[in-house]
């Protein structure tokens, strides 16, 4: 018996409460945008030294998680792991919602957000930023088509092909996002081809973590517990992804230690960077890396769904910290114009730049997260994205039905 996907039936007061809360956060975020646009970026913590601040941390995290959130669907359609098939539409939905949320934050932090039409009509194709705009809109298109092939019965036979295209595009998108930083030859923190695969690895990890959190919330809210076998599968996957992320982060800093000219920057992040050092070791390494790994490797992890959820939350927190260290730490370290010399000027040459995020920036960031939530909640109510049952028995029957259909 195949698992049916249905819209949420009979929503609880909790649904409306959460929806209302998120709408409020989104509105406050928009108010913050109005305030920033009318008064200029002087009301934020950003300045000529730290030009990309907290909104970019939020935006890049959401975009990276968006491409990773599609992974569950890709595993089902592209890599033949049919157990994840019932969850594929939710995965696609989350990918779109996260991307929209991330892009909203990014677009609204522009100096001239009123010039969005200009951004969409004047293109410099050498710019990875411009190429990313195509990658983002293409991603939306491909995932929408992919969702359509999954949810429209007569189109089901095209799902593997649509899934493949979406998967390839998603890899290109994350490579593009990593390259936004990787192509910055001028800065010690970024000048590296390693950033593209690093972002790919991180996207798997963050995407799955966000997917898990949303799934657990949706299932808890609508009384359909996830089965132990599925939980154990997710836990194992998360272990692999966290490890991959940790691998690339380690390689990035380790190889940098070999380049004498990068010593100062590595030392800054790993030892003397103050908040950045603290966030790095506490965030992606300890709380977002080692701790979840240890917790998830328990033999009976499938029955400890609270632990799995907690680990997902830790990974998300570690991810934010990683983005903060990457984006802001990379700018805090002074630009090296005269290597080996001590410099000073009226424009903060030679000094560590300081940054403290302002309230409008926090509000904009959370506004973006709220938009993701609103999209997901509305979609769940309106269309069939959530499997009716996810317990072990239902999954077994589903697998048998799928096998019989293929036989």
């Amino acid at each position, binding site marked *: 018996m195949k698992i049916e996907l249905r819209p949420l039936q009979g929503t609880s007061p909790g649904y409306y409460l959460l929806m209302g809360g998120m709408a409020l956060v989104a509105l406050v975020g928009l108010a913050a945008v109005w305030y920033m646009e009318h008064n200029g970026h002087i009301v934020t913590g950003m300045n000529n030294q730290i030009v990309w601040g907290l909104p970019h941390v939020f935006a890049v995290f959401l975009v990276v998680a968006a491409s990773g959130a599609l992974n569950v669907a890709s595993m089902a359609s592209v890599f033949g792991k049919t157990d994840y098939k019932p969850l594929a539409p939710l995965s696609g939905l989350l990918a779109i919602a996260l991307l929209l949320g991330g892009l909203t934050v990014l677009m609204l932090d522009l*100096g001239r957000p009123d010039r969005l039409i200009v951004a969409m009509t004047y293109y410099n194709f050498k*710019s990875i930023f411009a190429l990313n705009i195509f990658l983002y809109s293409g991603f939306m298109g491909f995932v929408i088509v992919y969702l359509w092939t999954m949810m429209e019965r007569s189109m089901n036979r095209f799902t593997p092909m649509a899934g493949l295209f979406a998967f390839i595009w998603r890899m290109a998108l994350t490579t593009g996002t990593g390259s936004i930083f990787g192509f910055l030859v001028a800065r010690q923190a970024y000048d590296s081809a390693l950033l593209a695969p690093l972002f790919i690895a991180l996207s798997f990890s963050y995407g799955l973590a966000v997917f898990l959190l949303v799934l657990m919330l949706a299932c808890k809210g609508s009384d359909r517990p996830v089965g132990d076998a599925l939980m154990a599968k997710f836990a194992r996957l998360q272990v692999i992804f966290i490890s991959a992320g940790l691998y690339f982060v380690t390689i990035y800093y380790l190889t940098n230690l070999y380049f004498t000219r990068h010593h100062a920057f590595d030392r800054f992040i790993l030892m003397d960077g103050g908040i950045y050092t603290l966030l790095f070791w506490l965030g992606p390494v300890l709380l977002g890396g080692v701790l979840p790994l240890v917790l998830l490797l328990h033999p009976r992890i499938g029955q400890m769904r609270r632990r799995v959820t907690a680990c997902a939350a830790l990974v998300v927190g570690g991810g934010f910290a990683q983005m903060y260290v990457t984006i802001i730490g990379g700018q805090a370290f002074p630009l090296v114009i005269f290597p080996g010399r001590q410099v000073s000027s009226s424009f903060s040459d030679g000094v560590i730049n300081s940054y403290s995020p302002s309230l409008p920036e926090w509000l904009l960031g959370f506004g973006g997260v709220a938009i993701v939530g609103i999209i997901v909640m509305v979609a769940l109510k309106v269309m069939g994205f959530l499997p009716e049952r996810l317990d072990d028995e239902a999954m077994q029957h589903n697998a048998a039905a799928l096998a019989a259909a293929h036989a």
Partner: protein
Amino acid sequence: MTPDPTSQANETGEAKSGRRGFMAFAAAGIAGILIAPGVRLIEIAQAAPALGTASPGASSIVRWGMLIDSTKCASGCTDCVTACNTENGLSGGTKTTDSQWIRKIEIKEVRTGKTQSLPMMCQHCAEPPCVDVCPTGASFKRADGIVLVDKHTCIGCRYCMMACPYKARSFVHSPQTNQKPDVPRGMGTVEACTMCVHKVDKGEMPACVTACAKAGHEAILFGDLNNPESEISKRIASYPSRQIRENLNLDTGVRYLGI
């Protein structure tokens, strides 16, 4: 049950004309697709000034550059900075949110304590990273080598500020009023040294160059790098000049002596 031969012949005839029609349509479509880009290219080519003709305004025959002799730069002297601020309507403030198009950098050799001073501004590279990364093409290099920001298309993403190896660019953080008529500046866009393009186009020299010369230091020389007879080209040909961050291969328009 043999099919009626006449109807079969008719059907074949209809099918044949149907196929022909389709083939004709497809051929026309493919031809159109193949030719259209060519037509567009011809359009673009005809719109651009013919090769070799001098169009009014900036031309690639000239390449504007500057040669800065840092041995003539006194530590603490900011004549060029003051002149730039006055000419371009900058506040002259040094808060982290204030725009600085040119700044003096004091450099110290750590082991010996030997100090040096020089002005740093947009280097007007021949291969500018800021132009490469700008998503809308607002950051561009003019035909005569001057790198500018087109504030009409700048969306204020600040990616060029991240990409500049010299930290030459500033972002305008608050609403601007009383701009100089020759130097538009607006909130939410990125700006940098324009090599006083409004003066250069009139045949004058940038404000920093004039001010330095007027004060008697004569540390900054401005001229046409493409003209071997210009003072700047002759000096670059005779003295070992360097570019800052030469290893990035950006071929800057601003060169330095004594670094």
